[in-house]
């Protein structure tokens, strides 16, 4: 016990300094700005404005799209990670999943505009198989698709790491005990990988709440999120007060999500008990 405590203190310092300088200080700044109007007078108007219908609608739509993006990311990432652990050169394949994310995002987005365009390869394919040309760009579909594309490596990695450690003996044991694949998955694999899934959900859902750029390039501003609103307030309207206020709410929402999802932290709890 004592030794664990000592271990802790040494390693905490750089991280604590980071939290102080790059998390708490900026937050203080944001909260401070949120109390000022355009002409620099103290005001609570920004907070009142946030509860207008416009920002409530934006909040709901941000959450809805973040949910969709997280859901589809998980739906694709889980089997991908699972199958990857079964391949021969799994580490290499995993790296090959990450490499595309190192190419500039704006450039890839332009490529998507070309790929999904009316005269792009995707529509050519749809025409070939007899579905015919579709307007793909500037729809909910294209927005969610490209967002999932961006976030998928972030979901695959933690799930892969969780699955990779899974003891095959456990699965065999479950099979030997007569469980079918689905039961094995539900009772054995899924609970053991839940921590990885949680990490993945966090690193997808939280940034997805504040997505911008894609909302313009791929969704043609038919999807508007809180992130877009903040960006506009800071860069176009130069109303840092209002922009900061929206950011304060975004951070509050994140805290609430963390609070709600922390209830059933299996792995952590086990460790806590043991110590």
């Amino acid at each position, binding site marked *: 016990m004592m*030794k664990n405590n000592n271990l802790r203190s040494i390693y905490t310092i750089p991280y604590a300094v980071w939290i102080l300088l790059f998390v708490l200080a900026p937050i203080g700044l944001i909260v401070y700005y949120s109390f000022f109007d355009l002409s620099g007078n103290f005001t609570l108007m920004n907070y009142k404005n946030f509860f207008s219908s416009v920002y409530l609608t934006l909040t709901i739509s941000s959450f809805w799209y973040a949910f969709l993006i997280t859901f589809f990311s998980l739906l694709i990432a889980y089997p991908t990670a699972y199958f990857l652990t079964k391949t021969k050169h799994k580490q290499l394949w995993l790296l090959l999943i990450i490499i595309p994310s190192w190419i500039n995002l*704006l450039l890839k987005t332009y490529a998507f505009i070309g790929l999904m365009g009316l005269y792009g390869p995707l529509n050519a394919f749809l025409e070939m198989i007899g579905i015919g040309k579709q307007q793909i760009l500037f729809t909910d579909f294209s927005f969610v698709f490209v967002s999932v594309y961006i976030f998928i490596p972030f979901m695959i990695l933690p799930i892969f790491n969780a699955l990779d450690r899974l003891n095959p003996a456990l699965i065999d044991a479950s099979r030997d005990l007569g469980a079918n694949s689905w039961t094995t998955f539900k009772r054995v694999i899924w609970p053991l990988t839940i921590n990885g899934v949680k990490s993945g959900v966090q690193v997808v859902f939280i940034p997805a709440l504040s997505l911008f750029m894609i909302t313009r390039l791929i969704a043609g501003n038919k999807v508007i999120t809180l992130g877009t609103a903040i960006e506009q307030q800071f860069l176009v309207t130069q109303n840092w007060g209002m922009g900061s206020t929206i*950011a304060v709410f975004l951070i509050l929402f994140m805290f609430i999500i963390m609070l709600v999802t922390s209830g059933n932290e299996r792995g952590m709890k086990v460790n806590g008990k043991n110590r």
Partner: protein
Amino acid sequence: MERIGKLPKVFLAVVFIILYAPIFYLIFYSFNSGGGMSNFESFTLEHYAAVFEDKRLIIIVINTIVIALLSALLSTAIGVMGALAIYFMRNKKMRNAVLSLNNILMVSPDVIIGASFLILFTLIGVKLGFASVLISHIAFSIPIVVIMVLPKLAEMNPTLIDAALDLGASKKDIMKRVIIPFIQPGIFAGFFLALTYSLDDFAVTFFVTGNGFTTLSVEIYSMARTGISLTINALSGLIFIVTAGLVIGYYLLNQKLKTPFTGVRK
């Protein structure tokens, strides 16, 4: 090891095709003698020649790579320490609070991070340029590392540590021999995703850079108004080929050197 069936293979193939489609698309047009990413006119290598002639561009690329590597390295180090700190916290509420603080930078739009970091740097008098960009990239990459490492720590059986302690291992030994090897996959995941964060970032870098220091993202975004030239496509193609080559080469080399050991270990 069990082989994978046909359906999983097809599934993986589709995933990889989609992941690489935009990259091959932009590489394809890097050979276009026309002006943009459409209407392929005829094959040319002029855009590749332009990359090597543009000294400024090469300097920017190197800046970008160095910042990405160093920031990923340092943020991984600090992030691992942070994850350990969170893991060893006994108070659950406290742990949750710190974890929430950890995630704040991930939920904040880049504009806000960039603007507040800029204010911070000018306040404490950090000269804008290499150092300020590096520090910012480290700062915004730390959360992702923490989140990648934590589940590995949670999976770790604490009796391992106790057993090691009983055997008289020192703290340093436990860290080196027990904890770090166990969470290694998480560390690498954190490192690679920190690289992604760094390479992708535009807005934060834009705000905190100065004195002639630029990264590739800033350069590309500011080209948007007058059109991104195909030189950038060619450059991205080159970066992609070199990176993929290095990764595969390194992996194969490692594989060759390691085979006898892994054979024993498994």
